[in-house]
């Protein structure tokens, strides 16, 4: 750590000798309900530079960015703009001095038009009236700059596909006369040609002298675009240097801080019998899905946002049921009509939105743990399964708390996820559907969740794991199903490359996967 700190200092010194950063953040600290997520982080942004901020999920990247953009207040440290200390009380305050953010979750209003979204909060007024003509014209020209003149500024945003919504999001940030633009995982939802577009755009921003803070966990993008890289790990600064100072291996080591081999538990023995089979299953969001889930195996499901990867889990879990095709559970054709019927068939569904759909936040740990068992199971099956020992159950998921009567809201993200897992284990499922199981969870809890999932598989559960994080999919899955445009695009064996997955996910054939590297935009 001291070695890193020394290097950081040296790098900062060489740059600050010739020019002053636009934004300088010093000693930034932040904690959420007592859990520190940032500890004394420094960050300098220079005009005309792309500064990549990397680190694992939960490393504190988004939090740091949100503090910069006035979305969250910092607990400690200060922010300087052009050498003068500033405190942003709101995103508006940050916007007014030219600091704007593109959020990972879209901040667009579905019912309003593209132009209305782009100018939200800053509508031009002429003679007391919103100048709609000007809004439309300016939006049109910004869209044209991005080569997206096909998008009409008058279209309601909810009528646009996800990738186009992202374009609107970028236009919205550009429309502010920004000096600093922070981008949070801007390519997460983009297809290949749009990524190329984003590259062009980011380069254009740099030429205009804008300071870009680029948060991404896709290392290729970082090396392609960044002038400078800062690595965060567990909320602390690990390294901050010009991009030439890093090799890929070194960057990965900085980010992960441990060899990947111990992070993901090794696969268990050979796969067992087919537990669940889909034949041509579909609904209005996914179509013609054939798949087999085997006891003891983890099937990873990859795909871009909106590809139907979550819709598949939601259909199997009964949240948004299949309307066509067959579901065969241990040899019998079944219909999954609702989450209740899924639970009764022994299917557990850990949803993507843990706080919104997985937990009753204001109820106790104990009540949450017993939720599925109490509400969904029949009296007969409860009797058959026997009494539940909540304490033993929570110990089995390695939950580090004894305050079972406390609100589940007070637990950390990792512990909350363990409660969701325990709640389903109380119903003794044979199939587990886990959607983004480690989103927003710190690295330590992540490893525990991976181990728990692998152990469950080892004890005969069939697991379907949806994830947007390729390392996690590759590290944990026995097979990987890739979804594209609501359909399965192909299935890959364990240890598939990120390129192979992305090629399928973006709609290219398996044959092209080998050439993935050549295809990627410069």
């Amino acid at each position: 750590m001291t070695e890193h700190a020394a290097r950081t200092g040296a790098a900062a010194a060489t740059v600050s000798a010739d020019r002053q950063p636009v934004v300088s953040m010093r000693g930034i600290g932040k904690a959420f309900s007592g859990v520190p997520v940032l500890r004394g982080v420094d960050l300098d942004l220079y005009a005309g530079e792309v500064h990549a901020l990397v680190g694992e999920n939960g490393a504190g990247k988004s939090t740091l960015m949100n503090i910069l953009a006035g979305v969250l207040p910092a607990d400690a440290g200060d922010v300087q703009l052009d050498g003068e200390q500033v405190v942003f009380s709101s995103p508006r305050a940050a916007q007014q001095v030219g600091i704007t953010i593109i959020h990972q979750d879209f901040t667009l209003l579905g019912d309003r038009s593209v132009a209305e979204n782009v100018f939200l909060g800053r509508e031009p007024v002429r003679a007391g009236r919103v100048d709609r003509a000007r809004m439309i014209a300016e939006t049109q020209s910004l869209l044209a700059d991005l080569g997206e003149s096909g998008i009409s500024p008058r279209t309601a945003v909810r009528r646009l596909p996800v990738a186009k919504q992202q374009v609107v999001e970028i236009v919205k940030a550009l429309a502010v006369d920004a000096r600093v633009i922070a981008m949070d995982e801007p390519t997460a939802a983009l297809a290949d040609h749009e990524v190329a577009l984003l590259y062009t755009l980011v380069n254009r921003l740099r030429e205009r002298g804008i300071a870009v803070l680029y948060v991404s966990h896709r290392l290729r993008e970082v090396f392609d675009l960044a002038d400078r890289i800062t690595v965060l790990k567990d909320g602390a600064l690990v390294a901050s240097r010009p991009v030439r100072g890093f090799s890929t291996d070194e960057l990965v080591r900085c980010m992960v801080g441990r060899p990947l081999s111990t992070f993901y538990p090794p696969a268990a023995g050979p796969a067992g019998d087919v537990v669940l089979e889909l034949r041509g299953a579909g609904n209005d969001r996914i179509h013609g899905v054939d798949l087999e889930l085997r006891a003891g195996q983890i099937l990873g499901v990859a795909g871009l946002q909106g590809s139907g990867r979550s819709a598949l889990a939601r259909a199997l879990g009964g949240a948004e049921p299949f309307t066509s095709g067959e579901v065969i559970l241990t040899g019998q054709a079944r219909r999954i009509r609702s989450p209740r019927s899924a639970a009764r068939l022994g299917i557990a569904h850990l949803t993507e939105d843990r706080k919104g759909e997985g937990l009753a936040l204001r109820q106790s740990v104990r009540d949450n743990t017993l939720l599925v068992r109490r509400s969904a199971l029949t009296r007969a099956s409860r009797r058959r399964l026997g009494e539940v020992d909540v304490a033993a159950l929570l110990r089995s998921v390695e939950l580090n708390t004894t305050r079972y009567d406390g609100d589940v809201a007070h637990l950390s993200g990792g512990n909350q996820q363990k409660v969701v897992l325990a709640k389903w284990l109380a119903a003794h499922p044979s199939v587990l559907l886990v959607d983004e199981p480690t989103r927003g969870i710190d690295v330590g809890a992540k490893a525990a969740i991976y181990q728990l999932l692998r152990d469950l598989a080892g004890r005969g559960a069939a697991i379907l794991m949806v994830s947007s994080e390729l390392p996690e999919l590759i590290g944990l899955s026995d097979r990987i199903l890739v979804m594209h445009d609501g359909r399965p695009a192909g299935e890959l064996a364990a240890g598939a490359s990120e390129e192979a997955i992305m090629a399928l996910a973006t709609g290219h054939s398996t044959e092209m996967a080998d050439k993935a590297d050549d295809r990627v935009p410069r």
Partner: protein
Amino acid sequence: MTTPPARRPVVGRVDFSNPTHSVYAALAAILVSGSILVALQGGVYLDSAGVLSILSDSTALGLVAIGQTIVILCRSLDLSVALLIGLCSLVAAEIMDGRTSMVVPAIVATLAVAALVGLANGLIITKLRVNAFIATLGMALILRGLLEARYTGPAGDTPLSFQQVGYTRIGPIPVSALIVLALAAATWWYLTQSRAGYHVYAVGGSPEIARLSGVRTDRTIISAHVLCSLAAGITGLYFAARLDSGSPFVGTDGAYDLQSIAAVVLGGTLLAGGRGGIVGTIGGVLILASLDTLFDDLGVNPFFKDVVRGVVIIVAVAIYARRAVDPRRRVERSPAEAGAAP
């Protein structure tokens, strides 16, 4: 390059996926089928008495519903309007006390009282973070207590000059209906042309997204409540003119709190906010009033009238609900995009 879905061509024909269009189509259907039904019984539905009846039925409800539309659009609602109407009618009538010279001061005072109540509602909802339902229900109880402590029945007196506003007609069209129309037009302008109106829709769509985009969400909600209460205040003035005096429970007797919410929702505005508008609300008000007049003409049992009203509201909202998909979850895919996979 994929092309985005073009706007659905709606000019010159009715687009049933647009609630506003459906509302007016339904209104037309009621007027036409009503005319036939009444004619079969040997009467005339839309003679000048019929039109007058529909319009005067629409006046008070229309006024309240205009205000209610604004608060519902920004994901709030106001249950205190009915009692505020009574309070305002009393303030107006007591200050006027039969004197023409006091008409203007009385109007000013009435609107000031209304604005204050709206301001209180807005502040309670935004600063104390009390749910709008509870906040305005509490305000309604407070107003009821104040009214019951001071009044047992009508009080005050409005001068003849002021009463004329309530009764003067141009042909079959009452002046008060024109005032409603003018207010509706002003509100339409506010909601669709002014920056504040844009923010009403944004806050209703998502308070958090609006906040992150730099909208002053509290200010938007407070303004909406002030405007809603002003509309209730104007309704109070209207009743003071119609009834020659102030009447504490004229608003609650007409159930204008829930009726106005029903009219707004019937007009296609999402109760969750962010979608809808004043044009639909006026349609909703006219539908309720047309049904009332129609049932009177047909001599339908008054209890059955309420049953039909209830059914109409529920069916309408059920139809809208089928289209009110969550934009975050279900993104409509353009045909070009769906077929673009290489």
